[in-house]
């Protein structure tokens, strides 16, 4: 049974949980944990349901629709001026699932947070609600509302629970990372805001409903002017080069669960926005600007990979690797052919799960060792076999090993790119090769080889971390060996994006 209330629940449940948690006395931290994990589980269940109950070949572009009038016929708003209009297509469905998985894993991993854990989970739930809202909203106002809502708690989440990095010659404090991330993302949303003004005025139909706006034929010059606003505005969040610098600093400073959600899911909001607002709303503008996007995307891949190779800190390496992998998403979108865009969306899911796993593992190590320097570890596989196995799976997914989700996604992207821009496709593959260099080097340096006696105190991950990691790995394998539930949903919807052929 398909009902929009499922999607509404994914937004409302975390928000109401945040509200309810304020009433829990902070002297009961375990009650807070139990509630958070239980809600995480419920959200995971809801997203799983939404994903599998989504019907392929059902004829409806958007399913699970729910539409409530919110404000109408006041001021500049006409009939159905602003509606809480929810619905998912084959692109939204895997994203909702991704959010459910990572949010659940995040609550599990955050079990061990002691310092003001109530406040942490309140903000975390607000963040989760915002993310679900973006993936399910079909109204421009609410899309933007939830987009900002996802940014809102970040400053405090990073500033209060984050960690600072100290390098030999300089330091990156958590306040710095928090502020940089917040200001960059809000600066990006300023561009989106302006784009929304322009679209609303130009359309002149008095509604923010995206499905109504999709029917409007915008002037070609208008599209060419406004599309970059959405492209760069959303691109900032997607880690688009050269607006990516918040990403490594912010993700490194963030506490583990927030890094997972942020790198795993929030960066996908950016790519998702490029599809929803950019390609679907302004197809001619997209057509015009795609060569620029694929160029920048290629820079993302290669530059991110080279930067990752240069890192000595685990978390910075993962941060730059995210920049690099988001490049594949951008390249795939920019091809504007079905296989490339398919690959991009698959990569959004795959990278989301994979990078969440990587951040979870880095966090598990950091919480014990309190350092993240790769070179000072060695032979950890002897002390923490499961940890190393989990980390290695994440790394191999990142390289694109067949049988894991990364392969499916990147293969599609490469085929798509080779069809349109063979030279850039070659550079993309070069990026994958560099990825292998830094991942394998890290595995060799830190996890295998002779055991460093300094770390004999380290123990295996906690149960909660293992559970969270296992959940993520299950989906990496699922998509790696049986991608059709994902690919079918995505492929159908991708063909409905105007301009993709």
């Amino acid at each position: 049974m398909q009902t929009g209330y499922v999607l509404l629940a994914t937004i409302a449940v975390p928000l109401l949980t945040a509200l309810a948690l304020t009433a829990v006395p902070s002297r009961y931290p375990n009650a807070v944990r139990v509630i958070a994990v239980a809600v995480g589980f419920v959200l995971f269940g809801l997203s799983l349901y939404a994903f599998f109950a989504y019907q392929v070949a059902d004829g409806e572009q958007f399913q699970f629709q729910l539409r409530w009038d919110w404000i109408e016929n006041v001021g500049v708003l006409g009939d159905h001026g602003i509606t809480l209009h929810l619905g998912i297509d084959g692109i939204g469905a895997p994203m909702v699932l991704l959010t459910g998985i990572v949010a659940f894993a995040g609550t599990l991993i955050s079990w061990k947070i002691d310092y003001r854990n109530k406040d942490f989970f309140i903000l975390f739930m607000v963040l989760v609600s915002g993310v679900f809202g973006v993936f399910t909203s079909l109204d421009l106002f609410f899309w933007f509302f939830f987009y900002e809502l996802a940014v809102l708690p970040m400053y405090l989440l990073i500033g209060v629970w984050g960690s600072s990095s100290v390098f030999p010659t300089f330091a990156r404090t958590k306040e710095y990372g928090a502020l940089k991330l917040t200001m960059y993302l809000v600066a990006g949303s300023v561009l989106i805001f302006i784009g929304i003004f322009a679209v609303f005025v130009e359309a002149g139909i008095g509604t923010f409903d995206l499905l109504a706006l999709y029917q409007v034929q915008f002037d070609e010059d208008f599209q060419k002017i406004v599309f970059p606003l959405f492209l760069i505005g959303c691109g900032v969040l997607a880690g688009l080069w050269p607006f990516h610098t918040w990403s490594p600093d912010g993700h490194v400073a963030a506490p583990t669960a927030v890094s997972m959600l942020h790198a795993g899911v929030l960066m996908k909001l950016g790519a998702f926005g490029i599809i929803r607002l950019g390609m679907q709303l302004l197809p001619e503008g997209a057509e015009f600007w795609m060569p620029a996007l694929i160029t920048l995307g290629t820079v993302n891949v290669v530059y991110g990979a080279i930067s990752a190779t240069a890192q000595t800190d685990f978390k910075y390496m993962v941060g730059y690797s995210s920049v690099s992998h988001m490049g594949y998403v951008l390249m795939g979108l920019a091809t504007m052919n079905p296989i490339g865009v398919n690959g991009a969306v698959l990569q959004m899911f795959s990278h989301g799960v994979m990078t969440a796993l990587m951040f979870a593992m880095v966090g598990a190590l950091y919480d014990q060792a309190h350092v993240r320097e790769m070179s000072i570890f060695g032979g950890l596989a002897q002390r923490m076999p499961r940890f190393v196995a989990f980390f290695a799976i994440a790394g191999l997914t990142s390289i694109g090993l067949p049988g894991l989700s990364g392969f499916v996604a990147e293969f599609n992207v490469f085929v798509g790119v080779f069809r349109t821009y063979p030279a850039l496709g070659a550079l993309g593959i070069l990026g994958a090769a560099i990825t292998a260099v830094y991942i394998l080097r890290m595995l060799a340096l830190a996890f295998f080889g002779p055991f460093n006696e300094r770390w004999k105190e380290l123990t295996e991950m906690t149960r909660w971390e293992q559970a969270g990691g296992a959940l993520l790995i299950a989906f990496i394998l699922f998509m790696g060996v049986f991608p059709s539930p994902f690919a079918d949903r995505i492929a159908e919807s991708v063909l409905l994006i105007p301009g993709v052929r």
Partner: protein
Amino acid sequence: MPEELNLDYSLLTPEFCLAGLAALVFALDLFAPRFRKEWLPYLTAAGLVAILGLSFGWANKESDFAGLLSVDNYTTFFRVFFMATAAAVALASAQFVPARLRHPGEYYGLLVLSTIGAIYMAAARELLTAYISLELLSFSLYVLVSYAKFDPRSNEGGMKYMLLGAFSSALFLYGLSLIYGSAGSTFYADIASAYAGGTEEFDLGLLMGLVLVLAGLGFKVAAVPFHMWTPDAYEGAPLPITAYLSATSKAAGFALLLRLFSSAFLPVLDDWQWMFAALAALTMVLGNLVALQQHNIKRLLAYSSIGQVGYMLMAVAALSSATASALLLHLSGYVITNLAAFTCIIAWNNLTGKEEIADFRGMAERAPLLAASLTAALFSLAGMPLFAGFLTKFLLFQAVAEEGFLWLSVIAVVMSLVSLYYYLMVIKELYISQPEEPGRLPVPALVNGLAVALVVGVFYVGIFPRHLFEAAQEATKLLFA
């Protein structure tokens, strides 16, 4: 001039009641020395709320008193608005006044009197009536700003405010005389028909008049370049009065501006729009940029409120019924938010005696509820979602863009980004910096209650704005009839 004067005094009942309330508060202070003076704020607030309820009796009616004052939905909207604001300020003063000030009777009495002035500024439909109402508000405020008699800053702030205020009143009056000379009437409706009917042309005299009126009102609402008094008056005034300045004084200025320019000068819209547009752009850029450098929370909020004035002036520049209703919505959201912020700041000041931004460090440990409320208010001022600020800014900026002032909206959005930075700097002190000394502070339950009630208001406007927005639309509809 209306044919027959309507002298129905019952239309003014709420203001008579307010005057009675003010007299009662004065008298209690004077004649009943043993009367427990700490009850005065509650008496004032209760009286205001009762009269507020009474004023709903004039909802959806349209009448006027001798052509001078309108009693319509616009007036009713602002009656409710100003009385609610004054009641909140009276409650927020309950701990502050006995600790810091003397003569509570005059304090609360002047608060109520100034409310009458503010209401008549919104109700006036004749230039001199508008002027007298403006002065009633201003004179009460001059006294209130310098109420901390032994604090040199308060005296300095009050003096600056009064001198510049008197100067701006003179400008305003001179402007009125020029307008009268050009249009031949002081009634808004007659001025409008003189220009709409073509009996009078837009001339230099009127232009000069408008410039001077704008300068005079610019002082009142603290628009750049007439804002110089604001930071000093805000810093010097007793904290609750700072809150009151940022709420009622500004809102009343806009209430007057909106009715005057829509009822009287709409026919010559093209000739004065550019002035407001320029003023709006200047005000929001300067207010927000200077706010970045402030170390005192009052001065920070003073400059941030200047920035907010810039957003509101945009709505007057792009005047239409859509922007007017969006302006009223934004004004309501802004005032509720600001009162919430000030309630927390006043409470913190009562407990610690400090008002530098750095002194707010660790507030989340020492007074968690106040810290959360203040954070909510600051996020709302920055325009983040769930809170009032996001929605009201979105609708306001969209309405302005709709009228062809996209460039102003773009400046406004960029300036909102700037404002987020300095609000985050305060939030950083609240949550990330460690407190000077550990331990919870004993926050009175009433203060917590007031802060929570105001924050609930902030959420209400941000999440269920429909009713308020429709009320704002009803209120402004007649202005454009």
